[in-house]
């Protein structure tokens, strides 16, 4: 604004030399915008209403929390994994007081453990050998079959879809008693239901 004024003022100086316009530049002025307003009077609220409002807010929050809790997937407790309280309480009473194992017994136990590990190893190796032998036998049978007839071979390697589902029972500790009538009784399912 002021540079514009300068230009104007120079123009006037150059063109005429009469100086009546020079002072006129001061005649342009701006007024600041007045945004102030009188202060509002603070409303005095009834404390009862405030309390009510707060309560409403709290209730709303509580409701939201409840809704969240309801929607969160409830896990059913695993009774077997929880140590019964009475065991915790009576632990000292229930602990067995046994004489300390003699070194001999401990030695013996370690030796047996080692013997067992070796026994299981041998058992496992024998198992693998059996599996190898059986697979080898089957492989040979299939190869021989293929030499005879490709069609029969193709039929033989098809999966048997009727085989599944298949179920096996046993072996059990003692054989079933022939003609055994099991004693009367009701089967009551006491397992808890969890929705």
């Amino acid at each position, binding site marked *: 604004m002021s540079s514009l004024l300068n230009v104007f003022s120079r123009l006037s100086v150059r063109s005429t030399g009469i100086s009546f316009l020079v002072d006129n530049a001061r005649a342009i002025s701006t007024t600041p915008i007045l945004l102030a307003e009188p202060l509002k009077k603070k409303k005095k609220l009834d404390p009862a209403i405030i309390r009510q409002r707060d309560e409403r807010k709290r209730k709303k929050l509580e409701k939201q929390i409840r809704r969240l809790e309801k929607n969160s997937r409830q896990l059913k407790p695993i009774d077997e994994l929880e140590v019964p309280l009475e*065991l915790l309480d*009576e*632990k000292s*009473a*229930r*602990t*067995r007081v*046994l004489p300390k194992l003699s070194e001999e017994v401990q030695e013996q*136990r370690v030796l*047996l453990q080692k*013997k*067992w590990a070796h*026994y299981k190893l041998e058992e496992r190796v024998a198992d693998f050998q*059996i599996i190898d*032998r*059986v697979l*080898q*036998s*089957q492989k*040979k*049978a*299939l190869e*021989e*079959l*293929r*030499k*005879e*007839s*490709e069609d*029969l071979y193709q*039929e*033989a*390697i*098809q*999966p*048997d879809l009727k*085989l599944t589902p*298949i179920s*096996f*029972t*046993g*072996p*059990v*500790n*003692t*054989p*079933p*008693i*022939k003609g055994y009538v099991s004693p009367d009784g009701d089967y009551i399912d006491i397992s808890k239901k969890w929705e």
Partner: protein
Amino acid sequence: MLRVLSRRLYSTATAEKWDLYAGVLVERLPVISKTLSPVEKEFQDQLWKIEYENSLKSDHEMQHEKDVRQAQLLKKGEVEVDLDEISSQQTAQDKKDAYIEEHKSFEFAPRITTDDKADNVKSTNRKLEDILYLIVEQKLGTDSHMLLPQGKREDGESLRQTAERVLKTACGDQLKPTFYGNAPVGFYKYKYPSKARKESVGAKVFFFRSSVQGSEGHEIKEGVKFEWQDKMGLEKKLSGGYSDSVQKFLF
């Protein structure tokens, strides 16, 4: 293309003609668990001991201890107790005796059956711990042998179908084993004696595995000579190369 190629490759390999046979291995699966070996027994005992040592006392033991304490106090006369109440209460020892009595009165079926004692090889109710294998009398040429049921393949049959048919004709309808898939598990070939040879040089037998469960209800057709043998018995009954081939796919 590949299949055609491979077919040619394999078919040219057989210049001689062989008869194709399907044989069936029928297993009677174990009914009862194996008796523990000495090592297993010893280790089992040790595990039980360790488990006992690490365990806490049970409710039953706690009650027993309480009963003993009560009895001692009574003896000393320190506690006044109503005698009627005491006599009506059941102590842990009483309960234990009752349990033992009940257990004793129940008779379990014996693990060794009468057929075991009589060595009745026609019965599946023996050697319950082991797998039993079925062998039947088969005529090969002029001689009869105890073999796994076997028979010649007819045109249009797959080997699996042959196996099922063969078993049915050899043993009847009552024996209904589960076949383990379409693929043979074993192979054996033998040449016919030169006198008996006509078109074919010999027979190629493809064995299929199948099993039955339970100790009873596996009737064999009447008039058939058959035996249920365990692995050792099978080795004795079968002979030579045939036995070797069969033993290869037994567990």
